[in-house]
């Protein structure tokens, strides 16, 4: 196996396809923290973007790429970092990779978090491994003079990611767990109103489960802040060609369309997302969406 990362295909201005050797892989609570050599991706990425990896190796029965938020990049070292939860067979395979094993990566993909011009305050909210992209974002924001507070939530202490890191990169950190095994017992949305009030944040950045993103959006709206949420929709390609990752989002013209989370997202303005369409693990097409099946029709 080659020790050096090398490009697989054409590397266009804003996206690359690289074979990325694993440089390190360490457990981090319930997750695995991987550092891989992917210089082209490292050079292009911005916080909020993601990478998509093939799984299972050359003889794999799993065709589709798995998406992961970029946790950190080091353009000088040419490395990219991701935090992976072993959910099912594909992610388990990734967490089992050893040093020098190679990941086939496409990235950076999707829209990054929008950055304010400077100053002010922002609150960053991460659920479980959803916190992965926030620390890098915090650093970028603070470089712009933004006061940054981080709220981390998870089901239990082992499913929190980056509590120590948060203390390094943010001005204040709040932690919640469903079972009270760390921080405040409860959800991030329980503490968020207070954090928003005390920080006077104008922007809230969030990444985590859909239900959390919806609650964060509501709390932000109530506090008069803008919510920038990074969603996690099931994706087959990650690059905008399959139309599997769509969700109803209100456009600039006020009309709802089924847009691709991989291309137009994963970061959306929270108040543009049609949260009413989500429920019970499904997302309906709202009746008023462009091209929706005619009501009463067939």
């Amino acid at each position, binding site marked *: 196996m080659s020790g050096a990362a090398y490009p697989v295909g*054409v590397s266009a201005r804003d996206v690359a396809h690289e074979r990325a050797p694993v440089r390190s892989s360490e457990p981090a609570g319930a997750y695995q923290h991987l550092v891989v050599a992917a210089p082209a991706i490292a050079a292009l990425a911005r916080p909020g973007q993601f990478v998509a990896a093939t799984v299972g190796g050359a003889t794999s029965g799993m065709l589709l790429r798995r998406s992961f938020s970029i946790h950190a990049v080091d353009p000088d070292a040419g490395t990219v970092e991701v935090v992976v939860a072993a959910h099912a067979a594909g992610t388990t395979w990734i967490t089992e990779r050893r040093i020098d094993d190679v990941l086939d990566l496409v990235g950076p993909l999707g829209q990054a978090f929008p950055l304010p011009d400077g100053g002010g305050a922002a609150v960053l909210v991460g659920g479980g491994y959803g916190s992965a992209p926030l620390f890098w974002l915090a650093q970028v924001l603070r470089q712009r003079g933004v006061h940054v507070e981080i709220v981390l939530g998870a089901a239990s202490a082992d499913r929190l990611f980056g509590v120590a890191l948060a203390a390094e990169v943010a001005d204040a950190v709040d932690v919640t767990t469903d079972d009270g095994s760390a921080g405040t017992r409860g959800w991030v949305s329980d503490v968020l109103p207070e954090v928003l009030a005390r920080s006077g944040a104008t922007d809230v950045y969030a990444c985590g489960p859909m239900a959390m993103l919806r609650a964060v959006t509501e709390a932000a709206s109530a506090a008069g802040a803008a919510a920038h949420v990074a969603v996690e929709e099931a994706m087959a390609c990650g690059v*905008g060609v*399959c139309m*599997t990752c769509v969700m109803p989002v209100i456009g600039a013209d006020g009309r709802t369309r089924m847009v691709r989370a991989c291309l137009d997202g994963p970061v959306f303005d929270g108040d543009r997302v049609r949260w009413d369409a989500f429920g019970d693990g499904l997302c309906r097409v709202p009746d008023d969406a462009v*091209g929706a*099946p005619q009501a009463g029709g067939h």
Partner: protein
Amino acid sequence: MVDLSTTLAGATLPNPLMTASGCAANGKELHRFFDISRLGAFVTKTVMPAPRSGRGTPRMAETPSGMLNSIGLQGPGIDAFADEDLPWLASVGARVLASIAGGTPDEFAQVATRLLSSPAAASVSGIEVNISCPNVASRGLVFAIDPLASAAVIAAVRAAVPAHLPVFAKLSPDVTDLVTIASACLGAGADGLTLINTTLGMAIDLDRMRPHLGGITGGLSGPAIRPIAVRAIWQVRAAMFAERIPTAPIIGVGGVASGRDALELAAAGASAIQVGTATFNDPEAPVRVLDELAGLLDERGYAAFADVVAAAHPERRRQ
């Protein structure tokens, strides 16, 4: 150098590799990864008369060496396609095989007519008539399960399209007798056939104990179905050799992920090869497959791609 060119009912393409409809959007996304004008043709996402939202989600489930989708023909509608997408494709020099659909034979014809009124109509190398999408609310709308319905659609499109532009009927493998459907399409004026669309499948969400897909059933694609595609191409090509149906070019599609796979479909009888689901695994798959195919032909001493088309048929070897 192997001559990779292929001729499809009068349209000569520099090479036989194509995207598959619905697996490459309308070009811009893949053009970030490779120059789409390198392809023999770019096959567009099936376009319908009006904008369509498609189905709710989940729209996909991964399956062993395959996937299910229930996109439901999401698209911008033919006006936006003809005014925006097609001109962009023309601007980068792509040859376009335009995939169209409608709810009735008339709608198909309207879409074709409107398509050809585009300022970029000259970039259209052919029309692929999708009569076989399983992701429609009623299986009754899958024209390709019935010879008469198939023929009605093809005849309407053929009448709306100038003679020099080839019309391909895209068929479903989910029928008792594929040759009869192929025969009906060719009889109604199709210049060629695209084989195969996805085969109908389903997955269950075991946590919620309900169908996994928003659309309940979905189309199965990927390497898992390649043996079905090879069989379908073989059966129809064999019927042509046996003179049970007129000889016409076949565009092969289904599970192609490598140059070997492309060669397999060609040897079964395909004059051009589309790469669909494999693109989700590797965004450069269509051109990678092209390069691998060229390498294989070269290694094996073939002078031209045309020499391997249907080469596994005994009738061809006897020629």
